[in-house]
């Protein structure tokens, strides 16, 4: 485990009482605002001192109230990317990037510097001052600055929350490359499902200062029990896919474990591993294979579970090959179709329902 956290803390009326472990990869602390996510990441960074608990990163104990251990912030070696960038206004981009090595009296590391600059596309920004950067550029510099402090783990507190949709879409691919190439585990705080679906390898769901559930991203995102936390409209599972071919008609075929998925032209070469988020509300279910229907994607699936909420809806968890999918349908439909766990049916998905921002780079390769 690259991170192990257990802590208790009182903040007025709010109580934090939780424990979780995170493997390598991107662990997303997920929950609504006010669930205590930022307090947890600040406790890991050492910016907040919990009343009690134990925090260890990569086998090194950073905080242990029982043993009286609390490593000072500047010795924790955790790169922290804040929501608002927090670049030093009196330094150039280059000086911001090299700040950590300078204050730690380490000599310059040109190879690491060039690698991070290339990874985040910072080459043209190096001599600018932070005031002259756009929000997205500033955040990329902040990520680079944290990476160049040679951290054992990266902490990111909703790094995209302050950006508009277009800027978000601009940064997400960089974060995916980071996940694959930097080799640094990441603890990522977010309440945005689209980000979670794109980036997470592991999800820790929080509510009211407690961890409600934790596990691998695919399983968590396809868990009907978590739909309430994720939000009905945002709930959706992710499928592992590989680009098979790009059709002349503007449709790309993707191989998924349960068949072939046809999506509007995907901007990735043939053979690329992708991760595709399928919103529960875009999936229809049919007990017989529909014919003469415009939807291009019809996958045979097995019903695993049905979960009724308070409203008229039912969340159905189905298995397509090795992957899990969620479908949000009405209780009336579920009854009319006679859906029950173990039964087989067909999942129907309109190709155009999948937004380009819901297609990200896969975890492998």
């Amino acid at each position, binding site marked *: 485990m690259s991170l192990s956290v257990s802590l208790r803390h009182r903040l007025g009326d709010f109580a934090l009482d939780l424990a979780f472990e995170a493997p390598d990869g991107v662990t997303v602390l997920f929950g609504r605002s006010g669930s205590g996510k930022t307090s947890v990441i600040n406790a890991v960074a050492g910016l907040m001192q919990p009343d009690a608990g134990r925090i260890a990163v990569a086998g090194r104990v950073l905080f242990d109230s029982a043993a009286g251990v609390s490593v*000072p912030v*500047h010795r924790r070696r*955790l*790169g922290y990317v804040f929501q608002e960038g927090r670049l030093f*206004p*009196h330094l150039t981009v280059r000086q911001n990037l090299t700040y*950590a090595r300078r204050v730690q009296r380490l000599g310059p590391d040109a190879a690491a510097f060039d690698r991070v600059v290339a990874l985040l596309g910072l080459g043209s920004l190096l001599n*600018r001052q932070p*005031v002259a950067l756009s929000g997205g550029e500033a955040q990329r510099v902040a990520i680079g600055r*944290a990476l160049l402090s040679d951290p054992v783990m990266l902490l990111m507190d909703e790094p995209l929350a302050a950006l508009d949709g277009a800027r978000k879409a601009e940064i997400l691919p960089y974060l995916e490359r980071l996940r694959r190439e930097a080799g640094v585990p990441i603890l990522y705080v977010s309440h945005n499902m689209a980000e979670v679906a794109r980036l997470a390898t592991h999800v820790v769901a929080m509510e009211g200062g407690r961890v409600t559930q934790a596990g691998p991203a695919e399983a968590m995102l396809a868990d009907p029990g978590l739909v309430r936390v994720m939000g009905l409209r945002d709930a959706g599972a992710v499928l592992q896919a590989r680009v098979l071919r790009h059709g002349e008609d503007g449709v790309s075929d993707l191989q998924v474990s349960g068949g072939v998925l046809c999506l509007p032209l995907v901007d990735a070469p043939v053979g690329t591993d992708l991760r595709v988020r399928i919103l529960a509300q875009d999936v229809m279910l049919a007990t017989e294979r529909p014919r003469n229907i415009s939807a291009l994607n019809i996958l045979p699936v097995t019903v695993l579970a049905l979960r009724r909420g308070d409203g008229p809806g039912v969340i159905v968890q189905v298995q397509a090959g090795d992957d899990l999918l969620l479908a949000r349908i009405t209780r009336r439909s579920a009854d009319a179709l006679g859906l029950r766990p173990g039964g087989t049916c067909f999942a129907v998905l309109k190709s155009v329902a999948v937004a380009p921002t819901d297609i990200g780079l896969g975890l492998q390769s």
Partner: protein
Amino acid sequence: MEFLGPDAWRAVALSLKVAFWATLAALPFGLGTAYLLARGRFPGRSLLNGLVHLPLILPPVVTGYLLLLTFGRRGPVGQLLEEWFGIVLAFRWTGAALAAAIMAFPLMVRAMRLAIEAVDPKLEAAAATLGASKLRVFATVTLPLIAPGVIAGAVLAFAKAMGEFGATITFVSNIPGQTQTVPSAIYAFLQVPGGEDTALRLVLVSVAVAMLALALSEWLARRVARRIAGR
């Protein structure tokens, strides 16, 4: 005829010396006090704040007399200073510098404190996460960001020290060539018949010095601000 007589020139030179050393010596203490007042959370904080501001509201003569009682040759601190280090402040130019520093201190601290309060502690937290110790955070983030305020505080203190009269004359008297600063000299020249002319020239000199100091600080502060804002 020369513009100023030798006594008057000596007064100008002495005033510059006194103000320079008073400002320089007060600078670290002023910065430390300003930082404590801006960031510190400790029991005696408002007491310290009151103490710092005392010279601003007390009659200068009272401050001067208190200095004489404390730092005079028979005062508790003055006696120790003389016995241990052989330093005598009363009726010396060093005493004038001390009086000027004390009188200028509140102005200096105020300017610096405002500058420190304007620094976002989140930037300092970010620096800490990047591996900077508290001292290095101060040197590499806080200090560059408050530099304009520090300069403004220093210039304000310098101007105040140049013009200090009441506490100085009470503590170190008005000895030409030794403790007679420009304000004391103006006062002295006004006491003798035919001295108004020299007094007026000294007034012109002090106005010129004040303006020059102000212009210098404006220029420095603008330069620093430009560098910090990155334009």
